[in-house]
């Protein structure tokens, strides 16, 4: 215990760790019910076609098959999609992407189900389709949906570009092509639907049981109250289980409804890679200018997101990209335009960072370019422009409260980078070394546009033995929400964390709390828990006061006891206080609610306060590059984060380390090879995520000087841990090879090509 006897800021064992390390945690795939059937989906192999008819007769003949269902068999609305109702659950007359479902199958074994699924045949009239977002927006392009291919445009318009440009002596222009990414959670999509007459329970690996509840209710035509969704232990998510799980859940629920038997749907890995959402590929065009003193004068950014075939969460992702396009820099004149285009590619969805990593990669690349043009060190150019005590207004015109930690993060990370040791010696060969820096200004929690979802529910139930049961509406998918909630509850109740049991959310025990995203899990659950504890204490404190012989206002909780303020010896065990409450039949359960503060923002100009508060971070990467083979080894990453307050040290560090390595994969090796909308590498043999042999050494500095509005002053860490890494690696590689690289990922061919066409800044090489 730290922090005056509370678990706050310590590293007690996570409550879920023991079951996981002994194999006792029951993920969906580990649960089988009597009579349970196995589901499979019949998916399109082409990305664009008109559909004549779907023939299920051969599929029904496969032994063991109990049901094959197509669009006609949907009792409610054949519609999925969190924001735009543009996606049928089962194909009607059009195929718009590879993976669109013609039919779903339930059978007595998974083998029979998937065999049956491949026997479903559809009469197709292939269409050319459109697979490039630039082409998609040209006049005459094939329309993916009748509404046209432009889904939405966002903007930021601040200051007078013309005037500002007149004062710029150096202008750089670049076009960045940034690839997508697969989440590669270790547990593929999984759900289990259990029907009863008139209602259904769904157990799912997910980040938002409430989205699933809505999706299943709509597809079955049931009231929300008849659909109960429980979040199962979830084997990683990273955004890939935010919106997407509604689709498999609706499929399983349909089949369960029809067969009146439990139906489990587990995606085989290949199908998971081929059919689920991805991080958006983006084109980012920059024109930025600075004066001779190295002060940024203006920044023009044009972003184009490839949404793929359905809008999903693309507009919300674009909103964050739009608001994050300039980074933590003071620029008087800003023009940002962010457009979202439909194509027949795999659809983009939520993924850790939510549009910010791509635009951060771009603004940090441009900062390095500008530094080279100006003959300044990249760190020095950042020092001259980064937000700080005297420059506190963001690119959207939001004035930040002091202290602003961006500069402190920069200095800390730079210092830690030069002190840090690489994890390993390099194999023999020719290696060039480079260092790269990247900063991020991360808007905590949901953007103004998603504010209606920024709420959360908690329930705290005191038990007669002085322990407590806690329910929150936000999910644990590995990131540590359970331990964060446990720490907050234990601290507020003054009891040992082992006496606090936090249970995964279930739509029948907590109110709709929105999705567990935007690094808001610990924040929103924590504040709701604190509210519940406050309400409980209105009933508990008077009882404790009576037993202690003091005023209710003098009661303090700590060390599993109630005590009198100023008289530390006078205590009574929590257990006795709760027992007295029980004896007097005083309610020992309380709910808590959190909602974010209202703020001002104008969507037309993009000006105002898109976020309530911000977290800042700086990552510095040191790499070695083999210029002949194009190989990159990330030797060390120094990370400095403005975290507000540490709730649980191991969980926090784990987020940073995991975010860095996941971002390293995106930066270097994780290439989605698409051909006419089909993924050519749907397996871990050629979609390469980092292994233990690739992991860099990581140093972490945590800055606690600027409190956030989370519990005890904390700020989210899930996404800021990811966002700046790929940019830092890109800048380090460019530093090493002496050339600009404008595409992500930096695969060996990309690097070899860049070395061959070396840019004139090679004079900076030793």
């Amino acid at each position: 215990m730290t922090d005056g006897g509370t678990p706050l800021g310590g590293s007690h064992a996570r409550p879920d760790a023991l079951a996981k390390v002994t194999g006792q945690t029951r993920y969906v795939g580990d649960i089988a019910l009597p009579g349970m059937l196995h589901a499979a989906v019949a998916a399109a192999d082409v990305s664009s076609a008109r559909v004549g008819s779907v023939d299920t007769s051969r599929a029904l003949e496969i032994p063991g098959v109990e049901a094959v269902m197509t669009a006609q068999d949907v009792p409610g609305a054949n519609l999925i999609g969190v924001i735009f109702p543009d996606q049928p659950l089962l194909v009607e007359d059009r195929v718009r992407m590879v993976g669109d479902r013609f039919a779903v199958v339930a059978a007595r074994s998974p083998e029979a189900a998937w065999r049956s699924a491949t026997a479903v045949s559809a009469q197709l009239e292939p269409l050319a389709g459109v697979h490039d977002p630039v082409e998609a927006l040209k006049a005459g392009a094939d329309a993916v949906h009748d509404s046209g291919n432009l889904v939405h445009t966002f903007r930021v318009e601040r200051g007078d570009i013309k005037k500002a440009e007149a004062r710029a002596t150096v202008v750089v222009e670049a076009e960045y092509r940034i690839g997508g990414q697969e989440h590669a959670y270790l547990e593929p999509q999984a759900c289990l639907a259990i029907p009863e007459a008139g209602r259904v329970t769904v157990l799912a690996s997910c980040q938002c049981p409430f989205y699933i509840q809505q999706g299943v209710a709509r597809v079955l035509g049931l009231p929300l109250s008849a659909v109960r969704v429980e979040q199962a232990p979830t084997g990683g998510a990273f955004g890939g289980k935010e919106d997407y799980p509604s689709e498999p859940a609706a499929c399983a629920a349909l089949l369960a409804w029809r067969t009146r038997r439990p139906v489990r749907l587990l995606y085989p890995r290949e199908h998971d890679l081929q059919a689920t959402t991805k991080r958006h590929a983006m084109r980012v065009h920059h024109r930025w200018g600075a004066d001779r003193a190295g002060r940024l004068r203006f920044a023009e950014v044009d972003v184009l997101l490839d949404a793929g075939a359905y809008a999903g969460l693309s507009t919300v992702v674009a909103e964050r990209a739009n608001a994050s396009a300039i980074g933590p820099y003071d620029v008087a004149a800003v023009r940002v335009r962010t457009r979202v285009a439909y194509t027949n590619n795999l659809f983009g969805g939520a993924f850790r960072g939510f549009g910010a990593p791509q635009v951060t990669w771009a603004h940090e690349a441009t900062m390095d370019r500008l530094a080279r043009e100006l003959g300044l060190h990249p760190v020095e150019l950042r020092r001259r422009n980064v937000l700080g005590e005297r420059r506190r207004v963001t690119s959207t015109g939001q004035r930040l409260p002091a202290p602003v930690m961006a500069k402190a993060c920069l200095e800390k990370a730079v210092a830690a980078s030069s002190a840090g040791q690489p994890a390993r010696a390099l194999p023999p060969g020719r290696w060039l070394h480079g260092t790269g820096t990247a900063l991020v200004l991360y808007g905590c929690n949901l953007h103004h546009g998603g504010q209606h979802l920024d709420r959360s529910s908690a329930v705290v139930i005191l038990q007669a033995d002085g322990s407590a049961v806690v329910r929150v509406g936000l999910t644990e998918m590995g990131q540590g929400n359970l331990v964060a909630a446990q720490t907050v509850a234990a601290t507020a109740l003054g009891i040992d964390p082992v006496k606090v049991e936090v249970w995964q959310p279930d739509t029948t025990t907590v109110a709709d709390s929105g999705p567990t995203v935007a690094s808001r899990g610990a924040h929103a659950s924590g504040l709701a828990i604190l509210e519940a504890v406050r309400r409980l204490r209105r009933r508990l404190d008077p009882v404790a006061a009576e037993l202690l012989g003091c005023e209710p206002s003098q009661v303090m909780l700590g060390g599993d006891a109630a005590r009198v303020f100023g008289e530390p010896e006078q205590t009574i065990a929590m257990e006795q206080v709760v027992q007295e409450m029980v004896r007097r039949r005083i309610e020992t359960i309380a709910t808590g609610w959190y909602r974010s503060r209202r703020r001002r923002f104008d969507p037309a100009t993009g000006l105002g306060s898109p976020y309530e508060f911000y977290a800042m971070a700086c990552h510095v990467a040191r790499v070695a590059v083999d210029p002949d083979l194009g190989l990159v080894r990330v030797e060390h990453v120094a990370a400095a984060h403005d975290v507000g307050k540490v709730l649980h040290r191991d969980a926090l560090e784990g987020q940073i380390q995991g975010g860095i390595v996941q971002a390293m994969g995106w930066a270097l090796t994780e290439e989605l090879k698409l051909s006419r909308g089909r993924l050519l590498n749907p397996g871990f043999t050629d979609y390469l995520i980092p292994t233990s042999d690739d992991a860099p050494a990581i140093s972490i500095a945590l800055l606690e000087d600027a409190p956030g509005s989370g519990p005890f002053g904390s700020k989210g860490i899930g996404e800021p841990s990811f966002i700046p890494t790929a940019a830092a690696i890109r800048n380090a590689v460019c530093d090493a090879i002496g050339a600009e690289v404008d595409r992500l990922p930096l695969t060996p061919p990309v690097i070899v090509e860049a070395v061959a066409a070396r840019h004139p800044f090679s004079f900076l090489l030793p």
Partner: protein
Amino acid sequence: MGSVTVSLVLNGEQRTFEVPAGRRLLDLLRDDAGLTGTKEGCGAGECGACTVLLNGLPVPSCLVLAASCEGADVVTVEGLGGDRPLHPLQRAMVERGGVQCGFCTPGVVTTGAALLEHGITEPLEQGRRLAGNLCRCTGYSKIFEALQAAAREPGDD
């Protein structure tokens, strides 16, 4: 497809199973023996979530035919500790924050236990040999810390 009889020592216990000839060891463990601690992350030998010890060596059980395990000694995550409630590496993983979503964890601790068993304690070497066990959550740092802590554990093994 015909069925075959497989007798093996599973977590120290002599067991016999009657399974279809094409059954994978992974399915025998999960479906026939009810040991669901071993996970399936890919079914193709790419992720390591299904790792078990086969005659003391870590193997991806999704690539092993159950029928080929006649007379073998198989240890899964459930049996890793032997007579102890926890293997030292399991304890270290809990204490050092090496567990996040947990889906890779059974495979990681199984491979890790084999590394320790074979005296492989040098971190770079551990990193190389653990490379068949993908973890998407931790960035591996705290897994390495746990391996180091478990190797220091006195009086075990």
